[in-house]
């Protein structure tokens, strides 16, 4: 089992595995979103207090969850990479970061669109939204750092340390923002209403959460393949890939015509 894991730690072996797996995750994502949206938009009843506007939770909450899960997964890959000095770990972190940042952005965007009709303001300094904003900044910082460093190995390791430092700080940041928030407001506003959620709503939310997760895995696996191609472009196995040979034929054919 462990040998199997180390087998796939090599980019050469992981590349075809990722190629086989991403379509499966894409299909799962599509099917689960269909089911989740069906439940959320056509079965779940109107909310007593929030009317139809509450349905935003079916994308807002999954996006928030994923923005946090992806960051933890990045930190996990970072730890692996720094411990075992594997190249693939850094590539996976790089593949995950943009998706995580997009989910953080969506969490903020949908949060604002939920807040406006509910609380009358496009933004409130609610503990969770504020923490999400900081998480978004952490993602941007990570992407900026890894893009700014030219040497890919240094970029991987630096990004790894940053991801770990960030991951350790996220709980501290969350609790400090929570503290900051509760001391200053009177009536506490909560994004999940105090009244217990109808079963169907919770079900739809969870299914959408898993759907987003499958989507994130599919995109990350697809993206890491491109990263592997570029990083490993000087190897024999990349030169012998059918898609690379096909591209070379295309290029030379174009050259001949021109």
């Amino acid at each position, binding site marked *: 089992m462990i040998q199997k894991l180390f087998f796939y730690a090599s980019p050469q072996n992981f590349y075809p595995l990722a190629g086989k797996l991403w379509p499966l995750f894409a299909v799962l994502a599509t099917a689960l979103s269909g089911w989740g949206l069906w439940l959320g938009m056509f079965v779940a009843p109107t909310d007593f207090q929030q009317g139809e506007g509450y349905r935003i939770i079916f994308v807002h909450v999954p996006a928030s969850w994923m923005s946090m899960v992806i960051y933890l997964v990045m930190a996990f890959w970072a730890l692996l990479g720094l411990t075992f000095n594997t190249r693939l770990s850094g590539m996976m972190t790089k593949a995950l970061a943009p998706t995580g940042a997009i989910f953080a952005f969506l969490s903020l965007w949908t949060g604002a669109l939920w807040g406006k009709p509910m609380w009358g303001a496009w933004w409130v300094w609610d503990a969770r939204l504020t923490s999400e904003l*900081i998480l978004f*900044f*952490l993602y*941007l*910082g990570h992407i*900026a*750092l890894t893009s*700014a*460093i030219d*040497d890919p*190995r*240094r970029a991987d*390791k*630096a990004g790894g*340390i*940053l991801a770990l*430092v*960030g991951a*350790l*700080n996220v709980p*501290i*940041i969350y609790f*400090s*923002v929570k*503290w*900051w928030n509760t*001391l200053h407001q009177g009536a506490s506003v909560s994004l999940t209403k105090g009244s217990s959620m109808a079963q169907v709503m919770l079900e739809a939310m969870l299914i959408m959460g898993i759907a987003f997760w499958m989507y994130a895995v599919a995109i990350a696996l697809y993206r890491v393949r491109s990263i592997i191609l570029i990083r490993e472009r000087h190897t024999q196995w990349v030169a012998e890939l059918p898609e690379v040979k096909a591209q070379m034929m295309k290029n030379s054919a174009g050259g001949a015509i021109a």
Partner: protein
Amino acid sequence: MSAFLAIVKRDLTLALRRKNEVITSVFFFVVVAALFPLGIGPEMNTLRLVAPGILWVGALLASMLSLGRMFATDYADGTLEQMALSPNSLSWLVAAKILAHWLLSGLPLVLLAPILGLQFDLSTNALWVLTLSLLLGTPVLSLIGAVGAALTLGVRGGDVLLSLLVLPLYVPALVFGAGAVQAEISGLGASAHLSVLAALALVAAVFSPWASAASLRIALES
């Protein structure tokens, strides 16, 4: 220990030869503390309310200004490499550099804060808490900033990138630091906030030199 003190002494001596580093941070703090009232309006009730936040953010930004220089000069002239190769633990030497940075950029802010606090009509107790919160908080800023400085060493656009990396991580110190002063003003007492701040300082003191040293090695080996 002697290597530790030697590094602190060295960094202080070098920095004081080019006094502008210390003066710039201090000057920035003073200017920012004066700018905000100009932007907000002279109404004293408002200013008293926002003073803790303004003074803390001003100190935070001032402290952040000099972070880039923590390792850059030593990196450029090869001293950093010598430090990494020396038999002394790099974490220990890095801790010395962080202490020197704090003495130059953090401590002056701590000493200046009560004077600036008077501009916002803070009570004596509030001024005490402000000073104490900055005394506990500015080391946290230097410690966390060191990790950022080490990660961005020699990277193009490093200074702005450093700010982007380090500001989100500064949030807890800011929340508890400014919060301490606000708690004192509102009569709730700042002890809880200050305790948390002290705990943050302790945790940062333990982890940051080690994380910074690891980041420096990454920068040096490429």
